[in-house]
């Protein structure tokens, strides 16, 4: 009986310690790398930038400068599909249109940005391709960008479950005391 109660107690402390560690880790985001720069897209030309995640979240910040505008396309590519060929590609308007047509099902967001506007966006945990194109109605797109890769070691979505596991662990860890107290009373 004492061995069983000891095992339950240790199992409880292990669960609680692990859950607490992972819970703390889910709040911490480690900056991994950052890229920043500026770019001008000439008429009839589109820029493509693939922010490959490999499960790493990325903060994307884009600010458009005066007298220009641009369009951002966010495509969610399946993880089996290699994203490398799309990196730093320069397409003309026709190629852009055919690319978007081909990947129509994977397009999950389209954002237009006008002059002096700014966008901060967290690219989700999947393999996301961000396509930066000049707005056909505008003469050119002139923008600054910065990308910061952050690694949350534990997906923050797990937080509620981790809290539940922590509570279960604590209950298991003190269960033998509860049993002893009940017996003595």
């Amino acid at each position, binding site marked *: 009986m004492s*061995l069983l109660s*000891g095992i339950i107690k*240790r199992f409880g*402390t*292990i669960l609680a310690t*692990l859950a607490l*560690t992972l819970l703390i880790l889910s709040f911490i985001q480690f900056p991994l790398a950052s890229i920043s720069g500026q770019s001008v897209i000439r008429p009839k030309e589109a820029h493509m930038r693939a922010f490959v995640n*490999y499960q790493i979240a990325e903060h994307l910040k884009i600010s458009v400068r005066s007298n220009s505008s641009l369009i951002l396309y966010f495509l969610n590519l399946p993880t089996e599909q*290699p994203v490398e060929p799309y990196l730093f590609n320069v397409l003309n308007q026709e190629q852009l249109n055919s690319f978007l047509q081909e990947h129509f099902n994977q397009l999950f967001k389209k954002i237009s940005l006008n002059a002096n506007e700014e966008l901060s966006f967290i690219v989700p945990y999947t393999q996301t391709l961000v396509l930066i194109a000049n707005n056909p109605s505008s003469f050119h797109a002139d923008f600054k960008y910065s990308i910061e890769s952050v*690694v949350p070691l534990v997906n923050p979505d797990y937080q509620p479950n981790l809290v539940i596991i922590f509570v279960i662990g604590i209950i298991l860890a003190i269960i033998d005391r509860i049993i002893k107290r009940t017996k003595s009373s």
Partner: protein
Amino acid sequence: MTLLEIEIDSRYRFPVLEIILALLVVLSLVMVRFQPFQSQTPEAKLLSLFMFSSGLPLLIIQLLIIGYISSGFAGEIEKGITRIFLSYPIGRGVYFVSKLISLVITPVLILSTSQLIAFGLFDAKLFLSRIADVFGLTLAMIGPLILLSVIFLLVAIVTRKSGTTIALSIILWLMFGIFTSVLSYMANITRSYYIAVILWVLSPIHAFQSHYQPPAFATIFKLTLVEAWTYLSLHYAIIIVLILSVFIYFKRRFEV
């Protein structure tokens, strides 16, 4: 049971076990997160995860086992503590099994649990959809660790000295690493199936590697899943035979 309780309680007093486990989970998570993966099949991705992330945790646990065996087993024989224990009505078999559980099985369980938690958190969907593969790969990963640990136990029983056990264990560990690397190299160079078979039996993770063929670790031989499991079973058969041999030696031949 009381002996096992004392063993585990003295070696893994709160919060030693908890901290080791939590740190290994964090370490595995960090190592898993920072691996860039090429496009590959889910099973190959799983194998790459295991091969990339198990390196450092495996090293830590191996060192922990060597330390425990030298101090907790060879050291106790050297200081005469084993003789005192066995003067009580405790069977030699029970004593050996309690040592095996506390010195070898528990650290191996810590390692496999931490890896499984890390993989589960990293990619829960992949983990749950390939649970049989995860099970096989975990067994393949911890197999050589158990094999070497049982050999270290034998070294401790034969030498009866803590320092000698550490030195010999490290030498054997390094020799095993060099031997499997040479075998892997030779199998690829000579394309000899027999050399590959020895490698797969000694290190079953290589058999799974030949089955899944991940891009980073592609091999010339291709195995079916059943063949990979067969080599894994052979590996564990060797471990069981070795444990029984050491057990019988300790029970019948070992003089306190």
